[in-house]
């Protein structure tokens, strides 16, 4: 059983990104703290979502009793190991930055004698209040990070002793996680992202965020798998496996587009002031180009590039389309968070890129580190042979 060896280049990349990120963030705090907090929230969520998708992919492979991906399962599992870090970071960002990030955390909004009294937020205070919010963030941390850590333990145990006992244990925990994920992926999206625009609401929001995080996570998983394969760690992973990951990227990009359209079209069509304000802001002249770009990249790139069978079987096409899709979904999260906090003054500059690099560097380091401690291929997985003999 072969483990991954962290290379010098891995370290240079991870620490380089982190170092660049620290500079960007430091510059940000010196010049515009609100904008810096906002980009920290946005990039932390973006990487958290990727890690969470790793966990979702890993667990539903067990729930669906899928065999084809058995060989590459350690990739999403290692991605998920970033969850403990991401959840702690999220909590710290909230604790130290909540007044900058979340309008609803200001006490005077709930004081009936204050000129800032806000009747709508007053009505929501049973849900949107700091103690309950912190409790929820901690709960998400326990559920998400706890499952990631526990599932990794079972995987290590499976490497050590073999047999099917750990397969069934993993399967059981996967089902529990999936049920909790079905709830927390929605409530988490309301809390972390939707409450940035505290007046606004959309019943679809949780599922919309889920679709975006799933596409991004799948793409990252595909890219990391190709990277490991090119470095000789996956001798039995071939174009058929890449093809299947490509299919997932294609299918769920269309699913994302479907939900994007459903949410936008229904709000646009009904044109109710309390709902349409959200899109009206994002269609101001300063933000409109990104609003359009978001839809164009995330729909047309996967739709046109990944449509044919051949393109999904070529690693380079998947890499190029994947890189663009990651940028596209980064823009999607940017469009949700930044205008909600900064209005039309939202920008993309060294602060936003720095914050993302910081979390991306951290994510990569945790990923490579975790890969180096479990077997790269779970050779004791009961369906591993199916994954070896898989062709399309």
């Amino acid at each position: 059983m072969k483990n991954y060896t962290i290379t010098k280049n891995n370290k240079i990349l991870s620490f380089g990104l982190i170092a660049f990120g620290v500079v960007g963030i430091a510059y940000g705090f010196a010049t515009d703290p609100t904008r810096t907090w906002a980009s920290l929230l946005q990039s932390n969520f973006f990487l958290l979502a990727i890690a969470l998708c790793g966990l979702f992919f890993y667990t539903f492979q067990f729930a669906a009793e899928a065999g084809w991906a058995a060989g590459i399962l350690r990739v999403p599992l290692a991605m998920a190991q970033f969850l403990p870090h991401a959840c702690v970071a999220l909590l710290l960002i909230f604790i130290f930055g909540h007044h900058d990030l979340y309008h609803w955390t200001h006490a005077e909004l709930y004081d009936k004698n204050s000129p800032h009294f806000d009747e709508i937020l007053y009505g929501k205070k049973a849900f949107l209040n700091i103690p309950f919010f912190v409790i929820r963030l901690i709960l998400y941390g326990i559920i998400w990070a706890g499952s990631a850590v526990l599932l990794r333990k079972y995987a290590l145990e499976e490497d050590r002793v073999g047999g099917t006992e750990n397969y069934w244990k993993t399967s059981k925990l996967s089902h529990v996680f999936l049920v909790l994920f079905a709830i927390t992926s929605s409530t988490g999206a309301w809390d972390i992202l939707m409450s940035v625009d505290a007046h606004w609401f959309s019943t679809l929001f949780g599922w919309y965020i889920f679709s975006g995080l799933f596409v991004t996570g799948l793409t990252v998983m595909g890219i990391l798998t190709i990277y490991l394969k090119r470095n000789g760690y996956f001798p039995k992973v071939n174009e058929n496996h890449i093809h299947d990951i490509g299919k997932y990227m294609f299918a769920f990009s269309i699913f994302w587009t479907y939900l994007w359209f459903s949410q936008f079209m229904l709000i646009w069509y009904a044109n109710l002031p309390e709902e349409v304000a959200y899109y009206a802001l994002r269609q101001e002249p300063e933000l409109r180009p990104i609003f359009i770009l978001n839809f164009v990249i995330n729909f047309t790139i996967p739709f046109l590039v990944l449509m044919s069978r051949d393109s999904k079987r070529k690693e380079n096409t998947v890499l190029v389309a994947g890189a663009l899709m990651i940028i596209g979904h980064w823009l999607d999260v940017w469009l949700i968070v930044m205008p909600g906090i900064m209005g039309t003054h939202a920008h993309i500059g060294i602060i936003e890129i720095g914050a993302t690099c910081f979390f991306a560097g951290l994510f990569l380091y945790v990923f490579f580190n975790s890969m180096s401690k479990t077997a790269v291929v779970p050779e004791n997985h009961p369906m591993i042979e199916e994954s070896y003999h898989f062709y399309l």
Partner: protein
Amino acid sequence: MYEAPIREPLILGDKTNHDITEDICRPIEGKANKYWWWCFIVAVAALLWWVLCVAITVGEGIGVWGINNIVDWGWDITNFVWWVGIGHAGTLISAVLLLFRQKWRLSINRSAEAMTIFAVICAATFLLTHIGRPWLPYWLLPLPNQFGSLWVNFNSPLIWDTFAVTTYFTVSLVFWYTGLIPDFAVIRDRAKTSATKFWYGLLAFGWTGSSKNWQRFEEVSLVLAGISTPLVLSVHTIVSMDFATSVLPGWHATIFPPYFVAGAIFSGFAMVQTLLIITRKVLGLENYITTLHIDMMNRIILVTGSIVGIAYITEFFIAWYSGVEYESYCFINRATGYYWWAYASMMTCNVVSPQLFWFKKLRTNITFTFVLSIVVNIGMWFERFVIIVSSLHRAFVPSEWGTYHPSWVEVGIYVGSLGLFFTLFLLFARFFPVIAMSELKTIVKSSSTQAKREALKHGHSHVSHH
């Protein structure tokens, strides 16, 4: 393709290719038994009842229904959405499961596709009856003004519906028929009378079974699966938009499109269960439609039922969270108002009862599954009733408040549509192969009991080499 030994077989009873042909063709080549005749008589009687009630509606106008100025949509639209929803599982089983390479679809896709076609036909009859003047059905289509009516309103989701349902019906029909061609050829080649040979030969489109035939067959199946998959989503999405594009509380919710789709798959699979549990018993197909198949479908019912449950709770929560008085009232009224019993039935049947499928014992229990599949479809009928009637009967101002009770004609049209559905399904089970036998034969070498035994033997010897 290689299959892990941990997987259970999909074909029981050591069946060979020839056994499969014999078992599937027997009901078509033999005489119908008395169960079939009894079912058929009851179904046709209900169908005649439908004809009577539709005749009254057409003759008198929709004034014979219970709907009124306040609740102007009632059982008609409820039934339409219910039937369209049921029409979902067929295409899902054939298309989406084909794309996901789920081999257990092979024993059930034929009947599920047939169910889709018949359910969409039933849904279409409600469109015709509720437009009030069914002799002008072409008003649903975009025709030039010179034809004698106004150009249809393309801003209206009702016209989107016309396109979505007809596209869905056409593609489902083509998909179903394409799959039937090799099986018709089998019946043609086995035919004992010249009439049988002629008719099934006509249906088989000159299929020879050459490898070129099969290559084209597989390509067409894949292309149709690719086209059908977005269609599964689009049809019910557009049905949901009939409601969600309005500004009525309880109807205008952005979650409606995916939530309607999940609900449709949920009720569609429940109807497949109802039909297949009867079919496997009456036609003796227990070795092909096994408890594993039933278990798999129950898992999908569990997942989609839970998704629907999350959607219900999300709507309820966001109605409060929104701070919009009308929204909050609408949902409290649904749960505690005049139609509380409909809401309670919906919650019990759709959210609570499928959770019992967490237990493997219940998932693999045929009687329990049969009862629950009917419970789910009762629940899904109530879901549409709750959405439609409870939102309409308490709109923004008290002058828009009222109640609604169906007349016997409306009830008759609904019960009668079940007659139409079962008549068509029974005829299908009598004259068409209910299992895709030619395609099923492709997994005899990997997923039958004898193949599993061989693999196990091979596996043991393989291990002993180490």
